[in-house]
């Protein structure tokens, strides 16, 4: 019930959309009625178009983000723990962090072509730094007494890193991953819009170019919903992982 009330504005927006298009307040070419969009969505679902392109996008996004999390976290913790690593990579991270990663789209295509590889590389490169910075800041904040406690209880330096520094870094690292998750969607759809032969972003561009706007809107809404659902699921996971914080 409270869920319904919470999302009531969305219901109003949907009704407004439908009315505006039906009453001709906005041209149906610019904004097809929501009901048409829903029908187009069902048709694409039945034809398998949505699932095939969705699976392709999911694979690219998942692989790129997964790599970014693993490599980014390892890099951030290594930078926080070994001064030489920080000295070597710190300035690089600083300079690259604010760069708009979509600028890398042509570069990754040049290197790896039009297929999955260039998208995965782009998402990996674009999503890694927020994870790295989160892990770095979190690991740097590890309590000295915790580190010493683990060592005095017989943990080797490497074991201590895993037992103390990684969990200490977790809260900030998980925040970094949340940023990376949002970035992954942005980069994925942009890259697929510009250079791809499949994927949800490609589908949006293709349908738009063909003038099938109801279907195009259906895919846009699908991407929006996937982004929302992923963030929600991630927040639930984060909450579970950090339940010790109260």
């Amino acid at each position, binding site marked *: 019930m409270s869920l319904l009330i919470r999302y009531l504005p969305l219901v109003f927006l949907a009704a407004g959309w439908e009315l505006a298009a039906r009453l001709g307040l906005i041209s149906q070419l610019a904004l097809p009625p929501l009901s048409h969009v829903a029908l187009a969505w069902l048709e694409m679902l039945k034809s398998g178009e949505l699932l095939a392109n969705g699976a392709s996008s999911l694979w690219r996004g998942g692989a790129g983000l997964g790599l970014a999390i693993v490599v980014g976290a390892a890099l951030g913790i290594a930078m926080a723990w070994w001064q030489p690593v920080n000295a070597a990579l710190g300035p690089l991270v600083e300079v690259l962090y604010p760069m708009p990663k979509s600028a890398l789209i042509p570069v990754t295509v040049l290197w790896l072509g039009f297929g999955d590889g260039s998208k995965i590389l782009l998402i990996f490169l674009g999503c890694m730094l927020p994870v790295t910075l989160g892990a770095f800041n979190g690991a740097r904040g590890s309590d000295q007494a915790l580190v010493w406690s683990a060592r005095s209880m017989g943990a080797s330096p490497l074991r201590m890193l895993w037992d103390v520094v990684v969990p200490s870094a*977790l809260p900030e690292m998980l925040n970094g991953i949340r940023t990376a998750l949002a970035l992954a969607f942005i980069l994925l759809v942009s890259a697929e819009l510009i250079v791809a032969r499949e994927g949800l972003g490609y589908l949006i561009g293709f349908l738009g170019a063909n003038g099938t706007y109801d279907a195009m809107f259906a895919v846009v809404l699908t991407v929006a919903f996937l982004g929302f659902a992923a963030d929600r699921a991630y927040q639930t996971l984060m909450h579970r992982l950090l339940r010790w914080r109260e």
Partner: protein
Amino acid sequence: MQQHNAGSGGPQIVIEGVNHLYRPPAGRPVLALEDVSLQVRPREFLALLGPSGCGKSTLLYLIGGFLPTETGRILFDGAPIAGPGPDRGIVFQHFALFPWKTVRANVLYALEKMGPPREQRAKRAQSFIDLVGLTGFEDSYPSQLSGGMKQRTAIARTLAIDPKILLMDEPFGALDAQTRHLMQSELLAIWRKSPKTVVFVTHDVQEAVYLADRVAVMTARPGRIKTIVDIRLDKSDPNVAKSSAFIDTVDQVWGLVRDEAIKAQEARLSP
């Protein structure tokens, strides 16, 4: 002076001519300890007492092997200290519990490194949780516990691995007065039941006199051992803290610390 036969009645810890230079990340290095020599006997309860900033915690960290001994030497059971280890358990002022582990998992952590079979570990962890009076809180996270309960958990965790010596760094300094008194008498009871060498850092004169067999009074920075006071009180008497002998001893020790505390304060006021 028998310094090398640690086995038979000799000192368990020998500290000889130790200096320690503290190098802050920014600013000038500070001499924290100057020519500190001290011996700790097996199974004695020794308090390191001094004003804040006198380097008493630093000395404890050197014994723990958390900081390297640069000048002088520290022997533990006859061998120089090379890094931290489970033979020297430590309890910190701010508990240093793993916040992502429950009480039980915190106590089990150290035992897992020691290798007894799982069932035995669980039993041992439980017996030490019971010993410190935390029965029923095994599955609580530190964030759900009071300060006193957190420190009980930390003590259980350290005692469970049965270290040869217990290093305590102002362990009751972050607790409220009532909890502090309660914890002091409980620690004394645990120690009397199974005596273990304890090096206990504090700036609280009453606490030092109440708990320790000997009180090593340190000077303001740079920290040196000013004098060592033998405490001759009947610790089995539950009312010892009200006896005139106790009050006189506290007076005597306070007289020794007072000048140092004033010096420490002046040093802080005039940079």
